[in-house]
Structure formats: C-alpha cells, structure tokens
C-alpha cells in the first residue's frame, strides 16, 4: 500500500522560505497570493495491504521521526 503524507509548518511558526517564494511570485506578476507555506511530501510504500493498518503505521512514523510536532503538523492525504 502506498501512503502519502504532507508535513507542514504549524500556523504560528515563521516560514521564511514560503515568504521569499511568495515575494518572488509576486514580483513575477502573480499578485493575488495571500500566503505561501512550504512543506514536505512523502510517499511511503509499505508492505501491508490493509488501509487502516498502513495508515496507523505511517502515523507512528510521523510522530517518531518524519515530523517534529513542536513546529510541524502531518496529514495523511491518501492511501492506495
């Protein structure tokens, strides 16, 4: 089963890279952007066919390594 996870910075954490990308796009003429937050995306191919069990395992991985919960949130966005 392939599980997809997105990790993003929490709302109140400064994201200077997102800000710079925002400013650059703004300078290129994309003037209607409100905010950009940069994140990370993982595709985890797991030896498990049960959707629920796969997602539970990935959730555990997020808590223990993939995300730092002081500053980041994780979200499983799909399993197939």
């Amino acid at each position: 089963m392939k599980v997809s996870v997105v990790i993003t910075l929490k709302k109140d954490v400064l994201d200077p890279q997102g800000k710079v990308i925002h400013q650059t796009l703004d300078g290129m003429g994309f003037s209607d952007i409100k905010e950009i937050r940069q994140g990370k995306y993982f595709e985890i191919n797991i030896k498990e066919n049960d959707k629920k069990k796969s997602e539970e395992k990935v959730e555990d991985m997020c808590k223990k390594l993939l995300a730092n919960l002081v500053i980041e949130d994780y979200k499983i966005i799909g399993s197939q």
Partner: protein
Amino acid sequence: MNSTVITFPGSNCDRDIDVALKKFGFKNKMIWHDDIELPKSDLVVLPGGFSYGDYLRCGSIASKSKIMKSVIDFAKSGGKVMGICNGFQILVETGLLPGVLLRNKYLEFVCKNVFVKINNKNNSYFKSFKKDILELHIAHNEGNYFCTKEQSKEIADNDQIALYYSDKDGKIDKDNNPNGSLKNIAGIFNKEKNILGMMPHPERMIDPALSGEDGSIFFKNLITDLK
C-alpha cells in the same frame, strides 16, 4: 576527567572539540555513531557539523543513531551532556532539550563572532565564570531557536536559558540577534542543568593567535567544575 565526543557521518567539529578538551586536561575518546556502548565519561559532547547532510531536519537522523540510546540513558541518569551547534540540534531532536532550531530568519548562513551573555551560573558549565559576557563564534544555517508558548514559560520558570545573544555590554535586543531566535536565546539547559545545548562554538576560541580566549576560559572552568 574523561570525556567522549560522538562522531556522526557529517560531523566536522569533532576533531576541534577533541583538541580543545585535551588542551585543558580531559582524557578524550572519540566514539563512532554506530557504536552501542558509551565509555566511562564525565562529559559527553555532541559536536558541530552537518550530520547526515542535514537530511529531513537538522539533527533528526543523528538523534536516532545507535549510540544515542546510550547517550540518552547517560543524560537521564544525570550525566553531563553538551551539544554544540549541530549537537544542540541533535539534543532538541531527541527531546532531551525543549524546542527546535529553525532556519535562520533572514535565510542566511551566519558565520561570525558574536557576544553572548551568561544567564544562569548556577550549574557546572558556567559556575566559575567571573565575567558575564563572552565573545564566541557562530556558524550555522538553522540556529533560530523556537519553542511553544508552554515550553517558553517552562524554560523561563525553571531558569533554563543558558546564553543570550547580546552586544559587548550585555544588551539583549533585536539588533543583536543574528538568526531570529526567540528571546535572543543562544543556549539552553534541561530542567536539571546537566544537559547544555548551545549554538556558539567555544572550541573555536581557544587560541589567542587564531581567535580569542573566551573558549579557553569555558574549558578551564568546565574541567575544574566537573571535578
């Protein structure tokens, strides 16, 4: 006094700290990250560098390496553990110290001498310091200290802030904050004060011909105070 320096793949200040510790009288051993057992130590140092190429988050992969289980046990039983720069990042990733080190606010790698003010001398790391302000070197891309509001209150309540970035007279403000750190924090302790994490490199200030001597004072005091 026995010290141990842990070398991770990508550490690059491990030999500098080895030279510094030996210069001031420590019997130092270098241990590879893949080892399991920690030699008998009065002090364990996690050095600066770019462990595992800073993959995922700085220090995150190193914090899960084999030797870190022993380092965590050692620290939890009251052993003195010091993390400098990348070592500080590793310590926060283990959860031994609160907070995280984010990318520098202005997205620049900062490499320069700074002044830091000692906030708390009631511990083995800064006990014998006569002066309050030190000139040390910093070199990092992710040194922007951040923690949650609850953690911030806790570290203030427990007097866990070790060092602040300041000017040469000890003034702590935005103009003397090189990386955007919360409250100008340059170093923190755990609650019990046996674990210290700091971004500045005292090992780079041990020779007056090359740099300065505030690092020498740090190591001289450290070996005396650990006895």
